[in-house]
């Protein structure tokens, strides 16, 4: 699956798509692949404040729980309630329909320090080398 070039990426395998001061956040295709079958998504309520580097939700696959860490500071304007009933969307369309939350960013410039698609692809290639070594 291609990594959209307009997104930015974190080392924790989240993507963030910024339009003005609103950011949409999800997890990457690599992340969903590593998690396996997603069965449960827990997201914050609208209005909740999230802090860069702090937990804002969790995703569970059959075999594991993973917490999701905020890539930027802001307040939640929307949470993707579709994922309550269809958590498997995280596996099938991680970069699109399975967005997790929308944030009103405290400081849109925060995102500039994150990886672009090319850097992220290089990053996961390294990861894959490590794990297959």
């Amino acid at each position, binding site marked *: 699956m291609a990594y959209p070039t307009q997104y930015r990426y974190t080392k*924790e395998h*989240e993507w963030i798509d910024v339009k003005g001061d609103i950011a949409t956040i999800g997890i990457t295709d*690599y992340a969903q692949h590593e998690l396996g079958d997603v069965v449960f998504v827990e997201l914050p309520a609208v209005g909740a404040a999230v802090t860069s580097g702090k937990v804002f939700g969790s995703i569970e*696959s059959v*075999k*594991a729980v993973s917490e999701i860490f905020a890539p930027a500071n802001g307040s939640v304007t929307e949470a993707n309630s579709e994922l309550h009933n269809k958590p498997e969307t995280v596996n099938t369309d991680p970069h699109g329909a399975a967005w997790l939350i929308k944030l009103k960013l405290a400081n849109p410039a925060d995102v500039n320090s994150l990886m672009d698609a090319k850097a992220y692809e290089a990053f996961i290639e390294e*990861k894959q080398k490590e794990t297959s070594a």
Partner: protein
Amino acid sequence: MELNSPPESSSRFTIPHIFDASYLACYHFFLPEIKMESAISPANSSPRKTPLNGVHRRLGAKMVNFGGWDMPVEYPATGGLVAEHKAVRASVGLFDVSHMGDIRIHSNNHSGAALAAVQHISMNDAARLAIGQAHYSAMLYPNGTFVDDVIVHRLADDDYLLVINAGTREKDINWVRDNTKSFDCRVEELSDAYTQFAIQGPKAIDVLRRLTDAPLDTVKNYWFIHGTVCGLKNTLIARTGYTGEDGFEIYVPSDIPTSERVWNEVVEAGKEFGLIPCGLGARNTLRLEAKMALYEHEISDKLNVWEANLDRYCRMEKSDFIGRAALEKARAAGLTRTLVGLEMTERGIARDGYRCLNDSGEPIGIITSGSPSPTLCKNIALAYVPPAYAALGTPVFVELRSQKCKAQVVATPFYKRSKKAIAS
């Protein structure tokens, strides 16, 4: 109680954790503190590989260190955990279980010394086994807790094969050697001599029939025969498994070319039945649905036979065995905790190591294994709780990170295959 230390509330969403020990705390069969692991696989040594390691990697399996072994968790390219689980329930799946250990105990002279040795170290009654029959049992410490659970096979008159767990191999072989010294029998470790395949599911017999002319229909559940499989003479074919489904386990020579050839032939023969390779992830969810114990989870060196509800495999009336006296006392003293099945009635998944609470929020027990059940589409778990909370329908709460999530005690096994499949 100190079963497993509770895992970190959960793991940071960094992918490498899926392959790290820290992550494994969440993953019930990747034991957070396998005490004997240090003896098997020091932190600085690389994990051991089964003869099928190359096959798994070529198939793109997700690999993980399990009890010191580099093993496939799931094969995303051919289905992934849930598809693998469902294949075993509906048709058939193929597992590499070569990490399991094998110990043969036999005498040269039909003296009965091997039987006496097995009787001494195993809680079930091996005198009841016919040649060609196997049973579930456990080896106990003198205090009545578990060294390991085992499948005991009676190969010949005074000749037994114990199949043991991967993570406890070295501990088990030492235990068997140390405790059978006074018997005039031989103890041989054959773990590395065999590649062990588990072909599991209602169609397992159809797949295996393509590869052998051995009379599989005559082999009852927990019996075995020797026959030619994939041209390999005298192959042990046992109607056993760890999935709660019908199926067979076969033991073939462990050289890589033979092992890979057999794997490929099983896959080829299984195509028309929908056979897919299955990893330890599905093996775990399958055995959990069937309420089969996993060492360091439902059984350990801190839990006894009565607590683990394994009474029916423990023959107190047979001759003395290690642990018997302590079990006698424990029975008289009564239980303080017991293993129960839970079903989550609120949204949430109980995981290994999470605490159980009563309705006033006091800790009463611990989850030993928990997962979504792909067959039942419910979130299920096994837990140790005081007997007062063990009645069916009793509400229990599970501490899920910061929340209290409602569950109730349900009948186990969570899944039981139909009688028809058992009789086939």
